[in-house]
């Protein structure tokens, strides 16, 4: 296979850095995101739109909690568990937080291994990430069943403001859905990595175009975003 001929046009002038670079990148008649592929730029823009979705959920929750005349249920008590006879506040949520952060760590490692073209390690680390994600969803299912059994409904609950249930199911439900899709996304890409698709430049199933290891980083962006959203949910819904 002969290497493609590279024209030297790309290295005419060095691109300015800092604010001057920002202005020149956004100036007219050129590609704005210079060293970012379309896949990565689109994932970032999708994540930006998702930020607004979750932003609106948290805002709706804030408005409901601020405007209710009935006391808000104390999350510290609602999400407490009895472990070995001891009453531990918020423990399940804390464990879920640690599980999600661990999954973010293994994902970061997977991206690193992907760029080093270590396909076995990359695929395994992505599988571990998916496993952590599935664990998180499982714990969330446990939490939902526990609360439903205790009588929490979107229209009411035994402890106080009726909006608690609707806010809780809406916010954690949407986040859990994101985690679930993330797990599926991870499994699909991990399979491709394991099979060596990005080393043999095997054509994609839908696009018939060869993939690159960058897809691992793009998957990682989505996964870290899911973790990021949980940081805000943890702070505003569970701790506040």
């Amino acid at each position, binding site marked *: 296979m002969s290497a493609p001929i590279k024209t030297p046009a790309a290295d005419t002038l060095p691109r300015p850095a*800092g604010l001057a*670079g*920002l202005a020149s*990148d*956004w100036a007219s008649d050129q590609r*704005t*995101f*210079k*060293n*970012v592929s379309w896949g990565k*730029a689109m994932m*970032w*823009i999708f994540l*930006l739109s998702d*930020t*607004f979705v979750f*932003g*609106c959920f948290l*805002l709706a929750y*804030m*408005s409901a909690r*601020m*405007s*209710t*005349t*009935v006391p808000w249920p104390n999350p*510290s008590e609602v999400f407490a568990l009895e472990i070995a006879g001891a009453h531990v*506040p*918020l423990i399940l949520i*804390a464990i879920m*937080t*640690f599980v999600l*952060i661990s999954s*973010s*760590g293994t994902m*970061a490692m997977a*991206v*690193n291994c992907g*760029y*080093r*073209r270590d*396909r076995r390690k990359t695929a395994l680390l992505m599988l571990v990430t998916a496993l952590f994600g599935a664990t998180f969803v499982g714990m969330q299912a446990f939490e939902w069943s526990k609360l439903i059994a205790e009588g929490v409904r979107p229209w009411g609950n035994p402890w106080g403001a009726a909006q608690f249930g609707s806010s809780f199911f809406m916010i954690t439900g949407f986040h859990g859905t994101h985690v679930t899709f993330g797990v599926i996304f991870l499994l699909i890409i991990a399979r491709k990595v394991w099979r*060596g698709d990005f*080393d*043999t*430049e095997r054509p994609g199933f839908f696009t018939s175009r060869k993939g690159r*290891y960058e897809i691992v*980083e793009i998957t*990682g*962006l989505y996964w*870290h*975003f899911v973790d*990021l959203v949980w*940081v*805000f949910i*943890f*702070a505003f819904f*569970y*701790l*506040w």
Partner: protein
Amino acid sequence: MAHVEAHAAQHVAHAEQQQHPIKLYLLVWGLLFVLSAFSYLVDYFGLQGFLRWSLILIFMMLKAGLIVAVFMHMAWERLALTYAILLPPLLVLVFVALMVSESNYVLFTRVAFFGTGP
């Protein structure tokens, strides 16, 4: 699978972007654990009032910053992308201000007209 390995070896020489030392990832990972533990302890020790809210917000922003900057590689992107992604969410803060004012008004009307206030 032998051809996969051979092919992979060919590409190793290519300089890829967003390649950073593993040590940095491990450090950030550890910091995220510590910060999460701190924010859990805020609840565990039952801190209340201004101290509670400020600590929750500080730990939240630190965690979010670490994830976006290091795990999502935003610290190494060109400003064109960084500003395009990080500035628009700040507008949500305007929305927050609007809704705080609105919620206060809704609470006022509920207390004034339904008389169920505290």
